[in-house]
């Protein structure tokens, strides 16, 4: 799994990091970062306003592979206060190193689940004492949710990510089958038409659903239509 620093792209330098600074300044936070794993390729795209020294250390040691503020937090629906992750064995591994860089271990991560099944993670941290952090948190949590979804939308609409999302690599057989589904054919019918077993049809459909990050076949057809891969039928 690769980690790509979006700040190294021209667009990122201009926008992404500046927005993190703005959020931190407005909401009295120390650091902020955003990361999202591309649901198709698994690549993590991220940007942060943490000091460069920590950033290079983090990337060099591939800390994103074990960082619980990414891994564990992405499975919650609610903001995850890092306090909740302390029992995770990887928490101390990552934050011991952060401590050496004088970085705080008080913070929270907001997971955003997108319509493509992707997850964006917006994290903020603070040097405040725990009681003061609690007060600040309840004051700014609504703003943080709004900031999180804003960042997520910006990143998801940026070229790097949308290119892979826009063109999930479906095989011609998968497209062919989805097209027949869109025309209202049953799996049995499609099997007969293409001279393959209904089970083979099902396997292809399952794969298409996963590639399109769809829960149901109807949803997969909808996405394939909106991506221009098949005709609406």
């Amino acid at each position: 799994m690769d980690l790509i620093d979006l700040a190294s792209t021209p667009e990122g330098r201009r926008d992404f990091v500046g927005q993190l600074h703005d959020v931190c300044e407005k909401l009295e936070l120390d650091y902020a970062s955003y990361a999202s794993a591309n649901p198709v390729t698994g690549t993590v795209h991220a940007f942060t306003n943490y000091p460069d020294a920590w950033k290079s250390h983090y990337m060099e040691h591939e800390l994103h592979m074990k960082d619980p503020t990414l891994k564990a937090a992405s499975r919650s629906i609610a903001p995850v206060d890092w306090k909740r992750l302390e029992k995770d064995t990887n928490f101390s591994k990552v934050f011991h190193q952060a401590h050496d860089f004088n970085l705080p271990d008080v913070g929270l991560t907001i997971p955003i689940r997108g319509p493509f099944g992707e997850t964006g993670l917006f994290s903020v941290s603070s040097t405040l004492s725990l009681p003061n952090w609690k007060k600040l948190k309840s004051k700014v949590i609504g703003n943080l949710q709004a900031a999180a979804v804003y960042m997520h939308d910006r990143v998801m609409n940026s070229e790097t990510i949308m290119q892979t999302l826009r063109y999930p690599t479906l095989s011609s057989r998968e497209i062919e089958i989805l097209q027949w589904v869109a025309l209202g054919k049953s799996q049995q019918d499609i099997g007969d038409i293409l001279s393959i077993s209904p089970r083979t049809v099902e396997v292809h459909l399952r794969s298409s659903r996963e590639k399109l990050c769809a829960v149901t076949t109807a949803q997969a057809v909808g996405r394939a239509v909106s991506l221009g891969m098949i005709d609406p039928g």
Partner: protein
Amino acid sequence: MILVIDALNKDRFGTVLDDVFKLRARVFGERMGWDVNIQNGREIDEFDELDPAYVVSLDDSYNVIGCARLLQTVGPHMLSDVFYDILDGEPPLRSVTMWESTRFCVDHNRLGRGKDKNSVSYTTSELMVGILEYARESGISDIITVIDPIMDRVLKRSDNTPYGYVGKTADMGKVKALAALIDSTEERISRVRAFAEIQGDVFVSEDEVEANIQPPIHLDMSDSLREYCFEQLESANSERERAAARALQQAIAGMAQSRRGINA
């Protein structure tokens, strides 16, 4: 009391979650006659695989007496992907500050009438307070909830009238369902609390629940069988598979026990 179970702590509360799925099977499958998929006495659907949060109501003996399931509306959720009949062809609401609540239910077998602590009425309100306070603390301002007309009347009667509805009332198997909107403002929370006379913190600590729930069943079986059961549980890829593995484990443990009974 209310316990929130999600992907981060569900390993500690496997038996509680299992009871949630069993309660849902009884309520939605048997009592309400919804068109739901029940296997091994547990109602589990594809949205249970998406790491939702479960708000669970427990009685003083830590039995599950109510539950609801929460998902973000920006990601896949029931109204966008299953209940689209309700939306009448319109796109679903998607907002980062709105969660969807589904499978809201309380246990009519364990709970009585009236308004005291072990009543359907109290538990319904407490579960509602649990959902709203958990949402509020997470920066969530609104809940969209898929309910049946009976639940809608219950909400109205308990000073928790939805502020609006989305789409239309749609047929769901033998019954109807509709999508109601509820805000998580202090005003509403205190109204619901006042109606049911709920005082103090409704949330129970994870440690307290863990210390009081049944320890995992003692498996009186051969090492190889125990190992096999453990492997089945470990390799389960979905909630459905996990539930089946637990049911197998219990069945084998039960067989071992009854065999001992015969021998004696």
